[in-house]
C-alpha cells in the first residue's frame, strides 16, 4: 500500500508580471501512516501552496508530490478521485443554503439523488448544522459559512482530505464539532492533511506534525518527538519581567506582551522559583508545549498568528 503523502525536493515559484516569489523552496518529507498530519507555519511559509500543489491546482517547478503513490502531475486524473479539499478563505454561494451546497456537490460528482440526499443529511448531522442547513448562506455567520465549506469537502468519500485552515473564524464550540468530524474520519481509516494556525488544534488532533518556515520544511514528528528534540524540557513564563540578560544563564529567553518566556531544564526551575518568590513576582511553570517547539524551531519571536 503506497504511503499517504510524499514530497521530495518540492519547489514552487510564483511568477507575476515579471516578479518572482519562491513560495516553496524545499519541502522534503513523507507521511507514512494514515491519520491526521498537520502543517504548521507562519503566514507565507508555504502551507497553502503545498496544499494547492498536492490537490493538482498548481504544478511544481522542481521535485514532486505523490499522494498514495500518485504523482500530482502525471497521475492527476486518478488522483482527483482520491482527494477532497477545503481551500483557504473559501466561501459558499450566497444564494444557496448549506444543504444545497452539499447535495449539489454530491450530484456534481456523479452521485444519484438518493445518495446525494443521504450523504448531505449525514454530513450535516455530523457537523451539527441542522439548525441552519436550510438558511441561505447570505444570512449565515462567518463560522457557519466556513462550516458549509467543510461539510462539502467531508461529504466526498475520498482517501485523503486537504483542509486548509478549516477552523479559521470558528468559535470554540464549532471548532470542536469540526474536530469531532476529523476524529471520526481518522478513526474510519481516512487521511487528513490539516493546515492551521491554532497550535492547540494541531496538538489535539494530529498524529504527526510538520513544521515549515520560509518555504522550507523544517521538522516532522509526533508531539512527543518534537518536544524531545528540543534542548529544554520546561517552560517558565515570568510576568512583568524584561531583564532578559539575567535569565540567559538558564536557557533561551524570549520577550512577549506580558513579560518573558524562558525555555529551560527542570534542574533550574527551583532556583528561578525561589528568586521570583522573594521578589513577589507571578510565575508560571509547565512542560514545553507545541507552541514552544514551534517558536524554537521557527526561530522567531513569540507572536504566532
Amino acid at each position: 500500500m503506497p504511503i499517504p503523502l510524499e514530497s521530495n525536493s518540492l519547489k514552487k515559484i510564483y511568477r507575476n508580471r515579471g516578479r518572482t516569489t519562491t513560495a516553496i523552496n524545499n519541502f522534503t518529507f513523507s507521511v507514512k501512516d494514515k491519520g491526521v498530519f498537520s502543517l504548521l507555519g507562519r503566514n507565507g511559509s508555504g502551507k497553502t501552496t503545498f496544499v494547492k500543489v498536492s490537490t493538482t491546482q498548481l504544478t511544481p517547478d522542481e521535485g514532486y508530490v505523490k499522494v498514495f503513490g500518485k504523482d500530482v502531475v502525471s497521475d492527476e486524473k486518478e488522483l482527483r478521485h482520491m482527494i477532497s479539499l477545503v481551500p483557504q478563505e473559501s466561501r459558499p454561494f450566497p444564494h444557496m443554503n448549506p444543504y444545497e451546497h452539499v447535495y449539489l456537490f454530491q450530484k456534481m460528482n456523479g452521485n444519484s439523488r438518493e445518495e446525494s440526499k443521504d450523504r448531505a443529511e449525514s454530513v450535516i448531522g455530523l457537523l451539527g448544522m441542522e439548525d441552519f442547513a436550510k438558511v441561505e448562506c447570505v444570512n449565515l455567520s462567518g463560522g457557519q459559512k466556513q462550516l458549509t465549506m467543510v461539510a462539502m469537502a467531508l461529504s466526498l468519500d475520498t482517501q485523503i482530505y486537504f483542509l486548509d485552515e478549516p477552523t479559521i473564524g470558528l468559535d470554540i464550540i464549532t471548532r470542536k464539532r469540526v474536530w469531532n468530524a476529523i476524529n471520526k474520519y481518522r478513526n474510519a481509516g481516512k487521511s487528513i492533511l490539516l493546515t492551521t494556525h491554532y497550535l492547540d488544534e494541531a496538538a489535539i488532533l494530529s498524529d504527526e506534525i510538520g513544521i515549515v518556515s520560509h518555504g522550507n520544511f523544517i521538522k516532522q514528528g509526533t508531539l512527543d518527538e518534537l518536544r524531545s528534540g528540543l534542548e529544554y524540557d520546561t517552560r517558565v513564563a515570568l510576568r512583568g519581567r524584561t531583564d532578559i540578560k539575567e535569565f540567559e544563564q538558564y536557557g533561551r529567553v524570549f520577550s512577549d506582551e506580558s513579560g518573558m518566556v524562558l525555555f529551560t531544564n527542570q534542574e533550574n526551575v527551583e532556583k528561578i522559583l525561589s528568586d521570583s518568590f522573594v521578589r513577589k513576582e507571578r510565575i508560571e511553570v509547565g512542560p514545553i508545549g507545541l507552541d514552544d517547539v514551534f517558536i524554537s524551531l521557527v526561530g522567531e519571536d513569540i507572536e504566532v498568528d
Partner: protein
Amino acid sequence: MIKELYRTITSLTALNGFIPLWRRPIALIAVISTPFSFLFFIYLFGGPSKILIGAIGGILFTIVNASTMLQTDLLFYKLDLKFQQVVASTPINPLVYMFGLATGNIVFTLPGLAIFMGIIVFQSHIGIIQILAVIGTLITTWVIFSMFSFLVSTRVREMRDIWPISVMFSIIFGVVPPIYYSISALPGPVQYFAYIVPTTWAAILLKGIVIHNFAGVAIPALVFVVEMFCVLAFTSRFSDWRLNRT
C-alpha cells in the same frame, strides 16, 4: 458515464441558473432589458417593418451578451469563492464545469429568447426547419462565447480586471458586429474586423435563414462552424484550469 455527466451538468445548471433565478427573479430584467430597449427604439425610429430585424438582433444580442457576461460569474467563483479550486480537485472535467455553469447562465435568458422567437415566428411565418436552424445557430453562438468566457476567466488574475474586460468584449461581440444592421453600413476597416467576429456570421446566418429562406447561408454556416472549432481548440490549448497564473 452519461448519467454522471448529466448529474454534473444539471447540478451546475441548478447552482448557476434555477436556484438564483428562483430566489432573485429580478435578475431577469437585467438580462433582457438592453435588447428590448434596442427593439423599442428600432420600432420607434424604423416603424413596424423593422421589428423583424430588431427581433433577430435581439435574440442574438441576448445570447452573446449573456455568454460574454459568464466570464464575470466564472471569475467570481474562481477568485472570490474559491469554488473552482474545490471543483478542480475533483474528477470533474473543466469543459463540463464550464458548460454546466453556461447552461445555468442561459436559464436567465430563456423568457427573453422565447419572446424574441415568438416575434420572429409571428413576423416571418417561418416553418419548423427554419426554427430549428435558428436554434442551432443560437446554440453554436452560445458555445463559442461561453468557451471564450471560460478562456478569459482562467487567464484573468484579479476580480477588478474583469469589469472593463467584460464591457469591452460585450461591445466587440455585441455592438460592433452587424446584428441590427447590414455589414455594408460599417466603415471599410471595421468591416474587415467585423468579419473576424463570430457574431457577424451568426447574424448573417440568422438573417439568411429567417428573411431569405436559407438563401446564401452555406458559406456563413461553414465559416461559423469552423470558428467554433477554432475557439474550442484555442480554449483547450490556452485556458489554465490550474492556478499557476493566479
